């Protein structure tokens, strides 16, 4: 079967886990924490978009719900931060299931699905920017309480390990999906819905399940964001920026692959920092370079970096066998 084994995942996570032991630099840890957060959010998108072929432009709806529920339960109802975080994930899943039920029941596909998910996220953003419970335009500040039981820490390392652990769980979930009947059905839906129906696949239900899992993973990213930055407002929670980050990482890294979102997030975030460095003080120049490089990646690696690696490996194997064949002949 294609795809990495659980042992590969454990190895990658173990290597990443050593970073705080190797460097005390807050800059490096902060950079990696944000990159892994994007990888986590992108992994959520990848379940539905990469494996299921349903391209959502509105994953902010799940990220924001995870973030707001985590924040509101703590600050307005005094719920423990960890419990609030878990409930935030559940709430994100619920919103995913609700939006999925509405869109898939009405048979929305392709660009229509993308637009409707975007619309849902925007509606939530506007509601959050006026509703008193979300702090309206002001947003919500989480009171500083640097204790582990409050999901807050003195140093960055514990945050880094937590987001890494969340990412590890998401990688394993995706790998298990890949190896399951549900995963086979989900890919079948992506490839050809009619053909899937003809061999007994309940395509609406498969998509709904994928969207629920996808939303839960992305909501975990939202909840983590709140604990890390201790602030949330409607623009951050439900803004288009996170919907774009969610799809950019897997698309650059390789959609429908276990490690695609992680590779993509690291590349995209590194690129972002490098272009800032190169562009110096010229305003906006970093974004121009950033955009240009992204276009190049998508043009030359249409299956993402993971796909490029597979292609190169296949090409190398062919080259070697033809060289060997000639040597024998």
């Amino acid at each position: 079967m294609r795809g990495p084994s659980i042992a590969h995942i454990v190895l990658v996570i173990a290597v990443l886990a050593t970073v705080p032991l190797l460097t005390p630099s807050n800059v490096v840890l902060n950079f990696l924490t944000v990159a892994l957060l994007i990888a986590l959010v992108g992994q959520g998108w990848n379940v539905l978009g990469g494996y299921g072929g349903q391209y959502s432009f509105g994953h902010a709806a799940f990220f924001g719900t995870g973030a707001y529920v985590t924040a509101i339960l703590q600050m307005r109802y005094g719920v423990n931060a960890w419990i609030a975080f878990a409930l935030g994930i559940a709430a994100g899943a619920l919103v995913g299931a609700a939006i999925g039920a509405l869109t898939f029941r009405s048979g929305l596909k392709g660009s229509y699905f993308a637009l409707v998910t975007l619309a849902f996220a925007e509606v939530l953003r506007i509601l959050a920017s006026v509703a008193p419970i979300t702090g309206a335009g002001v947003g919500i500040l989480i009171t500083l309480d640097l204790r582990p039981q409050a999901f807050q820490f003195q140093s960055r390392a514990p945050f880094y390990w937590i987001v890494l652990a969340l990412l590890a769980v998401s990688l394993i979930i995706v790998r298990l999906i890949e190896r399951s009947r549900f995963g086979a059905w989900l890919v079948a839906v992506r490839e050809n819905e009619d053909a899937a129906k003809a061999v007994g696949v309940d395509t609406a239900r498969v998509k709904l399940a994928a969207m629920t899992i996808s939303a839960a993973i992305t909501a975990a990213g939202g909840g983590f964001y709140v604990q890390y930055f201790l602030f949330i407002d409607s623009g951050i929670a439900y803004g288009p920026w996170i919907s774009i980050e969610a799809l950019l990482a897997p698309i650059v890294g390789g959609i429908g692959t276990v490690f695609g979102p992680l590779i993509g997030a690291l590349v995209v975030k590194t690129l972002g920092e490098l272009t800032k460095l190169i562009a110096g003080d010229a305003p906006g120049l970093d974004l121009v370079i950033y955009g240009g490089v992204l276009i190049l990646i998508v043009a030359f690696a249409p299956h993402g970096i993971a796909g490029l690696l597979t292609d190169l490996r296949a090409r190398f194997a062919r080259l070697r066998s033809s060289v060997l064949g000639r040597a024998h002949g």
Partner: protein
Amino acid sequence: MVELRVERVFKRFGGLLAVNNVSLAVEAGRITALIGPNGAGKTTLFSIISGFLPPSEGRVFHRGADITGMPPHLVARRGIVRTFQIVQPFAGLTVHENIAIGAHLSRRSRADALDAAAEVASTVGLGDLLGRPAASLTVAGRKRLEVARALAAEPELLLLDEVLAGLNPAEVATMVPIIRGIADSGVTILMIEHVMQAVMRLAEHVFVLAEGRIIAEGAPRVVVDDPRVVEAYLGHGAAARLSAAGGAHV
């Protein structure tokens, strides 16, 4: 025993009457063919039987149970599995993975489904192509893949929609025994087919559909000599001219 019964089915698309009062019965355990000129409504009828289209009127029964309007995945789970005239492979997947999707209908485990898929692949002659991407197959290969995927779902009733169309005579000759083999393993087959040589060799009972209506039925030999059938294919008056010409030779 009757495997499938279609009763007084109509299908309208706007002003077009695609299926016009069709009733037919498919006996269990044998090969039944549905023939007719292009545009006769054969594929539409298949879509109605398999749940992809609701009929405008009429009912469909599987082993006595009313399955009219049942969604396609439930029809498939009852044991009625169709292939598509315009082949519908899971293009990004390998041949092996394609067939395994069919096998998953009755198998939860990925390993079991892949094992079953490999077995089915060898019965339809795709055994050597398991690792190939479905998109790289030839027309003949894709037609086989359609059959293999449906067969892996272990149907009671297999609906084959022109699986021989577009094949050269040699390819047809290799497919005919495969279809015969499927029937011999106990699967009831209803096939839409244009390749008459294959229909004559395979089918025990033939229905002829023209302009949405069943115009003849019976044993293949009887049906092809039916003047109404000849006229449906060759035009009004053709039967008379043919028999006059044939008579002159005798």
